[in-house]
């Protein structure tokens, strides 16, 4: 019995197999399993890259299969067998050699054209109505400023879905690299330069990212999250962030905490709008509204915040924040400071 397949269908099936098989492993996986995956695009930019990557993978898999098949076939077919005659001393074949010079050149052309188109498309100026964000890399945390909205925050970048985000990238110290894989490729953050990157998030969700260029001791602990929100949700967040910090009620633990905060060394590095003016550490005006602390590595809860304040360098190697002891503060002050920081929603 002969098995008949429509040639067109067969070709499509083969193409699908070739692209899908190598990516099957990951394509079959959900974003939940691999939250930082670069193969699950959630922006226009990431989608352009994904489309290009699929074309590259298609050719790479074909070449891989052809070369390895030829290699294995030759190794088996031409293995030495007893009594086999000496092989013909062939020194070359001009037609063949021209052929296998031109074939890769053709494949290269097929890949080079979409590559160059994607380069220019993705590095074109952003749309006029883009949301402006200024990102500043620090050893080892990310600062996010919204110059038009008057907001400064850290480690968590909030953006509305479907609106282009125009990001300018700067660093306070060494080279870092800004990377949210779900949003597209990374871009280095270089001293003395302002780099740019823009994308339009296409799906609501929370996406992890992290620094991708070696930047010293806690390079691995320089993480961040992107919160892609519905427009009204984003507006609500903006409104809350634009408010002045909450003033704790007199007599509460939080009020006590504010006193410790302002009298201690906290104010040297941290800014709380109207309270302190430090610029070395993250802005804490609305720190209570964030989900993580310490460059996105610990949850923002009372226990972790307390441990962090007591001895930050022990929790995160190399952290610039002094331990409580070095700040000449006492552990009894910690619960009050934690209460104050948590109140800063």
């Amino acid at each position, binding site marked *: 019995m002969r098995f008949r397949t429509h040639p067109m269908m067969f070709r499509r099936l083969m193409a699908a197999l070739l692209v899908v098989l190598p990516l099957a492993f990951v394509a079959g996986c959900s974003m939940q399993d691999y939250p930082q995956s*670069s193969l699950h695009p959630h922006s226009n930019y990431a989608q352009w890259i994904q489309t290009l990557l699929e074309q590259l993978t298609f050719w*790479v898999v074909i070449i891989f299969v052809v070369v*390895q098949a030829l290699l294995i076939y*030759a190794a088996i077919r*031409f293995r030495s067998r007893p009594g086999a005659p000496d092989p013909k001393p062939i020194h070359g074949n001009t037609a063949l050699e021209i052929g296998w010079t031109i074939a890769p050149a053709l494949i290269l052309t097929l*890949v080079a054209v979409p590559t160059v188109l994607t380069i220019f498309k993705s590095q074109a100026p952003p749309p006029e109505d883009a949301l402006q964000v200024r990102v500043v890399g620090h050893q080892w945390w990310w600062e996010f400023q919204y110059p038009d909205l008057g907001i400064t925050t850290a480690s968590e970048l909030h953006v509305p879905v479907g609106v282009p985000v125009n990001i300018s990238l700067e660093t306070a110290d060494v*080279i870092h690299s800004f990377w949210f894989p779900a949003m597209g490729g990374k871009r280095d953050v270089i001293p003395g330069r302002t780099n740019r990157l823009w994308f339009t998030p296409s799906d609501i969700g929370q996406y992890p990212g*992290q620094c*991708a260029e070696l930047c010293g001791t806690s390079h691995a602990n320089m993480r961040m999250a992107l919160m892609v929100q519905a427009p009204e949700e984003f507006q609500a967040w903006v409104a809350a962030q634009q408010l002045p910090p909450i003033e704790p009620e007199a007599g509460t633990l939080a009020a006590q905490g504010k006193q410790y905060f302002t009298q201690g060394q906290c104010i040297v590095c941290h800014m709380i709008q109207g309270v302190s003016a430090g610029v070395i550490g993250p802005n804490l005006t609305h720190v209570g509204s964030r989900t993580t602390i310490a460059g996105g590595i610990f949850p923002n809860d009372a226990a972790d915040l307390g441990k962090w304040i007591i001895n930050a360098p022990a929790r995160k190697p190399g952290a610039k924040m002094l331990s409580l002891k070095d700040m000449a503060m006492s552990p009894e002050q910690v619960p009050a400071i934690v209460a104050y920081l948590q109140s800063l929603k």
Partner: protein
Amino acid sequence: MATTTAAIHAPVQAESGLWSWITTVDHKRIGILYGTTAFVFFLIGGLEATIMRLQLMRPDNTLVSPDFYNELFTMHGTTMIFLAVMPLSASFFNFLIPLMIGARDVAFPRLNAFSYWIFLFGAIFLNLSFFFGGAPDVGWFGYSNLTSKQFSPGHGVDFWAVGLQILGIASLAAGFNFIVTIVNMRAPGMKLMRMPLFVWMTLVTSFLIILAFPVITVALVFLLFDRFTGTNFYVPAAGADPVLWQHLFWLFGHPEVYILILPAMGIISEVLPTFSRKPLFGYPVVVYSGIFIGFMGWGVWSHHMFAVGLGPLADSFFALTTMLIAIPTGVKIFNWLGTIWGGRIEFKTAMLFALGFIAMFTMGGLSGFMHASPPADLQQTDTYFVVAHIHYVLYGGAIMGIFAGIYYWFPKITGRKLGEGLGQLHFWLNFVALNVTFFPMHFVGLLGMPRRIYTYAPHMGFDWMNLLSTAGVFGIIAAVLVFMWNVSRSLRHGEVAGPDPWGGATLEWAIPSPPPAHNFGTIPTVHSLDPLWHREGPELVKTANRIGGPIHMPPGSHWPMASALGITLLLSGMVFGWWLGIPGVLITLYGIYSWAFEPCT
């Protein structure tokens, strides 16, 4: 064909013992010194990798501190590139080039000894950093401004910069030596297009070395000035652009990649024809594509810098030049396939490693092709995808090629064959283990794991692939142990090889194994590309072993070693202080003076 040494005019010198090795200027002995030293550093680099893999075995692991982890990957990269793969290649250059071109030694035998000693001392100096306040921890690429005094106040970066300068002297001296040797000292009749392919690749590599190392030398001089005298070549606060370092480093760094891989390509181009019983397919095309790769290697450096933001025009240019390199590389692979096609393939261990090279290098080449495309690269660069890529190229490629060479020429070097059974075990263990180790890295990288992170969070999905990679390392360790056992066993009990155990075509197989100090009794005249496979073969073998007249061999000398020691001490003084630098200057001057005026007979 009994050779007599009566006619050999060489000064009396020790033939064995430690002093004979310290004073040797014999290219074969220097080759052996290079090979064994480099293998020790290969083990050290492997140990560093093993500790890293143990740390990454599971999320949030705390086996090593982040700073030590940063030292480990910096030293692993630096060691494997400068102290393992390059000197392993140099060991083949040394042992084989004079034998393959029909010469008695290299053009400058004492300079050759000097290269080795300065490599050894530089390597020791670099590794001393572990015991003097911490090894370098800024990555093997040492991007400024992380390397500045402000962000790396310790001595690690100084050790790294000075160590690379010392090693650069060794590479430059060797590069010039081999260019002069290959250009001037070929046997009569050996035209350029009759040179074995390994000789060609050595020539191309040597040109890359002498052109690339000055670039990193300059880059490092700027860095050392910044760190020691407070200049501002890379200090952004003073208006400098730290990207300057990246341009200089990769202008060296990309040719360096070809410095690492071209010798291995040369090796397998010798192994494949021998065990297929067929000449290399399309020899001229393989030669030209090697030259073309070497040439194009200068026009692609910014593909390491797509994330820097050089603009769409620069990105496109470097994408196209990078893709262009895929053409000669592909041509080489097809010509190797053409070589074994229609042959009579004997699966000796050397051949297995050569075939393994083709399979693994193709993998590495194809993943490289994927990040030749800048948009794709922006997702892949600085992730484990690139770690997978470089290890397929440098472990699956360069190291497998080097192992092919070791199995192929071990009989020539020692007079005995390596055990075939253990060899096959070594190959298969290594082949499976390297894929278990490095293949999952493609995926863990695409799934978002950056490079050079000492830890990762448990909920990222990186866990089991990292565990698998770590498991694979133990397979690689087992394979290396099998190899070491094989070497130690075969040195004593291996099958005696005779002059030509594999039926090779090139000149080194015409003379005894191991070759006598003077290599050739009479320098033979060469009439073809594969002389021993031609009618001229038997006659050529006779000539090569017949002492035709007085042979002048250079005397041993300890001055190259003394000069190398002096230069190393001199430069070490930058880190340790003037009390070491001043004796270094004196020893250097005295060493070079004595070297220059040493009688040559």
